[in-house]
């Protein structure tokens, strides 16, 4: 018997990972109904404990039990709570000794290592509520698009992406992906995360924060949030 003990429960509603140390036990719970697979937690994690899973598949067939949009590695996680604070949909919760930790009580927020995120709440499709704390534009590279797989439109929680129908005449040109409603976009980056060929790129322009922050922690994290993209990461690894 050795510590930490790790246990993992998956049901259709939640994914619960419990890490039991000698003195305390910590849990990270993902609400699978709220999660859209935007990958903000993966982009924000300072320890690389979360990485991108099969996003499109998990959104298309949400009932399949073993498919989850985020791959979480409890051995690397230090339970800092950055992902819990940053998740735009409030899908992640952390528990300590069986009690839910409030957002304000997370050490990084309480000790002012992270600034306070200034967000506005938005109502989205399917009764989702999102907190938007960044502004972004989505750039479409039409050459890279695989034409009609529809992952981005399937995943987008605000319904601001549409796949154009084929034109009636052969000589008419149409865009493959159209961003219909830029104001409705929540800047979550789900489309970027789900695109299998890297045709959609999320460019974060503003992040709304206020209050003090630690110089050694927050600026590198912001840099990581803005630049880390899975399609680019694989290229860099090669």
């Amino acid at each position: 018997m050795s510590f930490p003990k790790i246990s993992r429960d998956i049901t259709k509603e939640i994914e619960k990972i419990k890490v039991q140390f000698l003195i305390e036990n910590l849990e990270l719970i993902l609400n699978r109904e709220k999660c859209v697979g935007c990958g903000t937690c993966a982009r924000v994690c300072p320890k690389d404990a979360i990485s991108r899973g099969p996003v499109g598949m998990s959104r298309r067939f949400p009932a399949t039990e073993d498919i989850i949009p985020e791959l979480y590695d409890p051995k690397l996680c230090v339970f800092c709570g950055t992902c819990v604070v940053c998740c735009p949909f409030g899908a992640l919760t952390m528990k300590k000794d069986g009690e839910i930790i409030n957002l304000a009580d997370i050490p990084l927020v309480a000790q002012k290592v992270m600034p306070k995120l200034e967000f506005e709440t938005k109502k989205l499709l399917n009764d989702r509520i999102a907190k938007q704390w960044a502004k972004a534009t989505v750039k479409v590279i039409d050459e890279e698009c695989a034409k009609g797989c529809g992952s981005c439109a399937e995943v987008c929680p605000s319904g601001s992406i549409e796949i154009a129908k084929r034109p009636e005449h052969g000589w008419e040109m149409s865009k493959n992906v159209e961003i219909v409603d830029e104001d409705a976009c929540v800047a979550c980056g789900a489309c970027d995360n789900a695109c299998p060929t890297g045709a959609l790129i999320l460019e974060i322009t503003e992040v709304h924060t206020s209050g003090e922050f630690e110089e050694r922690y927050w600026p590198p994290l912001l840099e990581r949030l803005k630049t880390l993209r899975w399609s680019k990461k694989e290229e860099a690894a090669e």
Partner: protein
Amino acid sequence: MQIYELKINKNTCTGCNACVVSCPINFNELRKQSFLNDSNAVILVKNGIAIPIYDDKREVNCDGCGVCVKFCPQVAIRIINVEKE
């Protein structure tokens, strides 16, 4: 790099090619190189049955988008999330 396992039910697969045509990564490779074989495809039909192709050294791999699962008329494909070690 992540590899997602594609499981194909050999009894129900008819080899109709729908998964090969619908796969967005196959499409991109086809446009770049104008052919599909073991070196650049993710899934291919061989001997009347669709076969997923894995290799650690491959440049392209299954992305887990689930388009093939949606398009398969026989519902013969499943995708499994493999934990990396």
